[in-house]
C-alpha cells in the first residue's frame, strides 16, 4: 500500500493525475451548485418561522463546514509534511490556506447577514459565530507565519507546526466558547441550530455542501499544479511538456 503513496508523492505523477481529473470535477461541481441553488432558492418551501431569510443557510452552512474542513486538510498535510517530508503535502497546505480563510470570512459575513433579520444586530456573540471568528484568526496567523520567515523551507515547517498546534486547540476553543456562551446567556438553544428542517430543504443543503467541496478541490488541484510548475520549472519533465506545449 505504501508504494502508491510514494508514487503519488512524486510531483510529476500528481501533476498528471490532477490534470486528468480536474475537468471532470469542474463539470460535476458546476452541476451540483446549479441544481443546489435552484432547489434551494426556488423549490424549497418557505420556512414557517423565518420566512425566506432561512435560505441563507444554503451558503452560510456549507462555507462554515468548508472553513473547518480545509483547516483539517491543512493540519493533515502538515503532519504528513513534518513526518515524511513530502513536498506535495506542503504545497497543498500552502494553496489551501487562503481558500480556507476566504470560506471562513464568507461564513462570518453570511452568518451576520442571516442574524440581522432574526435578532436585529449585525454581530451576535453566538458560540458558532465566535468560534468561526477565532478560526479566521488561526488562518491569518498560519498564512502570516508562512511568509514571515526568510527561508521558505523554515517558513513551511514553522507553519506546519503552527497548524498542528492549532488543530489540537480547535476543539478546546470550541468547547470553551460554547461553555462561555451558555454561561453568559440563559440556556437558549444555540440560535444557529439549523431548524428541524423538512427533507426538501435538506437536499439543497447537501447539494451545496458537496458543490462547495468540489469547488475547493478543483481550485486546490489547479493551484497545486501551478506551484509544482514553478518549483519544478527547470526539471526535464516540465521542459519536455513545455516543448509539446502540454503544460
Amino acid at each position, binding site marked *: 500500500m505504501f508504494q502508491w503513496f510514494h508514487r503519488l508523492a512524486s510531483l510529476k505523477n500528481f501533476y498528471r493525475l490532477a490534470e486528468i481529473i480536474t475537468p471532470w470535477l469542474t463539470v460535476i461541481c458546476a452541476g451540483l451548485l446549479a441544481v443546489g*441553488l435552484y432547489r434551494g*432558492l*426556488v*423549490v424549497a*418551501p*418557505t420556512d414557517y418561522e423565518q*420566512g*425566506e*431569510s432561512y*435560505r*441563507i443557510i444554503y*451558503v*452560510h452552512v456549507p*462555507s462554515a463546514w468548508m472553513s473547518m474542513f480545509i483547516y483539517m486538510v491543512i493540519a493533515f498535510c502538515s503532519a504528513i509534511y513534518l513526518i515524511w517530508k513530502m513536498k506535495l503535502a506542503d504545497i497543498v497546505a500552502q494553496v489551501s490556506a*487562503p*481558500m480556507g480563510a*476566504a*470560506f471562513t*470570512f*464568507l461564513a462570518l*459575513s*453570511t452568518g451576520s*447577514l*442571516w442574524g*440581522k*433579520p432574526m435578532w436585529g444586530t449585525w454581530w451576535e456573540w453566538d458560540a458558532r459565530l465566535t468560534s468561526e471568528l477565532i478560526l479566521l484568526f488561526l488562518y491569518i496567523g498560519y498564512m502570516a507565519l508562512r511568509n514571515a520567515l526568510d527561508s521558505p523551507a523554515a517558513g513551511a515547517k514553522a507553519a506546519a507546526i503552527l497548524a498542528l498546534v492549532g488543530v489540537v486547540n480547535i476543539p478546546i476553543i470550541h468547547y470553551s466558547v460554547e461553555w462561555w456562551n451558555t454561561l453568559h446567556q440563559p440556556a437558549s438553544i444555540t440560535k444557529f441550530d439549523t431548524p428541524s428542517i423538512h427533507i426538501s430543504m435538506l437536499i439543497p443543503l447537501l447539494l451545496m455542501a458537496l458543490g462547495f467541496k468540489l*469547488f475547493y478541490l478543483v*481550485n486546490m488541484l*489547479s*493551484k497545486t*499544479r*501551478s*506551484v509544482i*510548475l*514553478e518549483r519544478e*520549472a*527547470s526539471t526535464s519533465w*516540465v*521542459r519536455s511538456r*513545455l516543448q509539446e506545449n502540454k*503544460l
Partner: protein
Amino acid sequence: MGAKPVAGEQTVKEFFAMGGYAFYVWMSFGLTFVVMAAITLSTVLQRKQAIRLVKRKAQINSNSDSVSGQ
C-alpha cells in the same frame, strides 16, 4: 419528486422580494458569488504566472546552453 415547485405560481418580482428579506438573501448569495469568483480568478492568474515562469526559465536555460556551445 413530481411535486410542482411551490414557487411556480410566484411572479418573478415576488421571487426576488424574498418575502421582504431580499437585501439579506441576495447580499449573502452575491457575496458568495464574489468570493468564489475571486478564488477562481486567483487560480487562473496563478496558472498563467506559473506558465510564464516556466517559459522564462526555459529561455534562460536555452541561452546558457547555446552560450556554452553545447
